[in-house]
């Protein structure tokens, strides 16, 4: 009884870590995705400086998602990661290039172009692979005898390609809204134009993926169109519309924070939709939350620390954002 409760608390915490990662690293990966659209070195310096003090903390949520999954749902960890072997490896390689480019592009004049490409391509590859991972997970993973039992290219499907494109648009939208918040002048105006385009793209892809998903698995169909969860199916599109309006309103009315919050809203709602579809499975159609959970001794031991530490982490991470609040202005020397 207690074990069921612990595993569900942990499912919520892991979901929170993944969502925190998606929205936080989402906007700094978005900066990388938008890099090719900003060829000026000055713009690129401002863009990287706007996320330089915080991106490392943002990426740590990914480490918590991975390490935490191993700790509390080892069976899910041990089956999902082999299933997504190639996308995970490519994502890690992309993140390596993205990470070092922050530092290296300021260390060299001659090779800056190379590291700028590393920053952009690293961000794009990492994002695409995360999108593919999402699509492949939604489609389901074959598990036999506590092992992944599918093929090496199972993740490569039209649906996972679509979710990859969707996430690229989504992160680019977050990045553009972040730039709208942190910059001014020409750069900000351009970010707003990009925000409009990527906003439309993101909404369109959320729509297509949402219409496609119920037809992938009967359980999704039932979840979306049967009482009582159908309430959410009706509610989520309305809330999405509110966010879309906020985004449009903010970008056209010189609001700096509102578009970013609206874009975050789109992600939170989409994430909630995925959560509703999955429940009570952690690997759709294969493993439930209870089946994949580690024993109570493991769940309880880590939960004590997590409940104490996560609020503290949120507090000092928030403080770091507060320290670096306001517009990035390189002409001041940005001390």
């Amino acid at each position, binding site marked *: 009884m207690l074990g069921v409760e612990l595993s569900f608390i942990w499912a919520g915490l892991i979901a929170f870590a993944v969502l925190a990662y998606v929205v936080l690293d989402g906007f700094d990966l978005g900066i990388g995705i938008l890099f090719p659209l900003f060829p000026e070195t000055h713009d690129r310096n401002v863009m990287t400086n706007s996320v330089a003090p915080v991106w490392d903390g943002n990426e740590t949520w990914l480490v918590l998602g991975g390490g935490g999954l191993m700790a509390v749902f080892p069976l899910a960890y041990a089956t999902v990661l082999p299933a997504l072997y190639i996308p995970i490896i490519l994502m890690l390689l992309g993140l390596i290039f993205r990470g070092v480019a922050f530092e290296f592009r*300021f260390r060299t004049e001659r090779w800056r172009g190379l590291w700028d490409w590393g920053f952009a391509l690293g961000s794009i590859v990492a994002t695409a692979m995360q999108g593919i991972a999402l699509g492949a997970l939604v489609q389901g993973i074959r598990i036999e005898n506590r092992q992944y039992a599918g093929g090496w290219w199972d993740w490569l499907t039209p649906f996972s390609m679509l979710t990859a494109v969707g996430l690229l648009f989504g992160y680019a939208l977050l990045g553009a809204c972040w730039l709208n918040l942190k910059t001014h002048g020409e750069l900000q105006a351009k970010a707003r134009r990009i925000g409009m385009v990527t906003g439309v793209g993101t909404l369109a892809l959320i729509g297509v993926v949402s219409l496609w998903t119920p037809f992938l698995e009967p359980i999704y169909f039932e979840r979306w169109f049967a009482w009582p969860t159908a309430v959410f199916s009706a509610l989520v599109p309305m809330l999405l519309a509110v966010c879309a309006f906020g985004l449009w309103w903010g970008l056209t009315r010189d609001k700096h924070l509102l578009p970013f919050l609206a874009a975050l809203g789109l992600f939170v709602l989409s994430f909630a939709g995925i959560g509703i579809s999955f429940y009570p499975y952690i690997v759709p159609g294969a493993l439930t939350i209870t089946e994949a959970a580690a024993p109570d001794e*493991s769940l309880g031991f880590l939960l004590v*620390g997590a409940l104490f530490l996560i609020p503290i982490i949120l507090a000092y991470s928030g403080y770091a954002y507060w320290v670096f609040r306001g517009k990035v202005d390189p002409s001041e020397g940005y001390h």
Partner: protein
Amino acid sequence: MSYQFGTNWATFSDKAGPVIGPLMGYEVLTAFFLEAGFLGIALFGRQRVGNGLHMFAVAMVAVGTLVSATWILAANSWMQTPAGFAMNADGQFIPTDWWAIIFNPSFPYRLVHTVLAAFLTTAFAVGAVGALHLMRDRDNRHARIMFSMAMWMAALVTPVQIFVGDLHGLNTLEHQPAKIAAMEGHYETQRGAPLILFGIPDDEAEETKFALEIPYLGSLLLTHELDGEVKGLKAFPKDERPPALLPFITFRVMVGLGVLMLLVGLWSLWARFRKTLYTSTWLHRAALLMGPSGFVAVLAGWYTTEVGRQPYTVYGLLRTSDSLSNVDAEAVGASLIAFIIVYFFVFGAGTFYILRLMWKSPTSGGGGELAGAPTRAAGITPAIQIEATGGDNAGR
């Protein structure tokens, strides 16, 4: 790393995850967030938060790395000397006593040995940079401070490290005698065992060829008795022995570098006493040469202990060959090659940039080489333009 366990070691993750996972989870929660969260303030925030809070942020990054070492070494030590667990029907390790899991028999030794190794690695890297700039300008104040502090560390910590290393070895002898046998190149169990200085262990022939031996010293070092019994590899079934050649070599590399570190440390004490610490060109040359020694010794030590744990991931309980993911060899090979290429490229560039930074004369104000180029708030490493940060997530 928190992803490689899943991609390449899925069965290990499923079985050992309930024990290893929470330790790594605590590492993320108590250490990684602390380091990453305060690194931004440490690098860029000095003007924004003031000196006091900036110092606090730097201290948090340092504390984070020590906390990180504690958790990950608890996890690794548990794999070497597992304790505090039971097995369930699915073949998973179930934690029964977290205190016993964390403070498993080899953990205290491995923790102290590894943290001291990190201090020495830094000391010799910093010492080499100081020595380089002293060779150019004996009066460079910053170079003097660097060199002096590094040599104090070398002189004081190296003897402690050798003592701790010996304790760690005795602990290994108690819990993993086959690893010691491989490190020593001993195949026969014997009383009054010699210390084999050099040789080539041959697992096929079950003997160490071309051995250069010092009689009785092996028993003396390991058992602290002249005729103490030292187990050889033949005392263990063939399929429970680690391969001997690699630990034998890497152990000698580590110990040899440790001895050289001790000599440089003592030399620096002598030079300090003679008031030639900043003028002795030969000492500076030696210190420069020893710059990478810590990195090499750390790697050699890890090869010794990890290869010496074979053929197990969880010592005596879970074989390495039973720990793998159900992944095609081609996929594993391709990812390994991809990582080698990327690391070669990225580490190559990084090493180049670090060496170039080290080559420049140290200054306290930062000061980029381009006119008007702003520097990091912390004022430590000059960047060409506007500050940027480096991350430290690559190894996770």
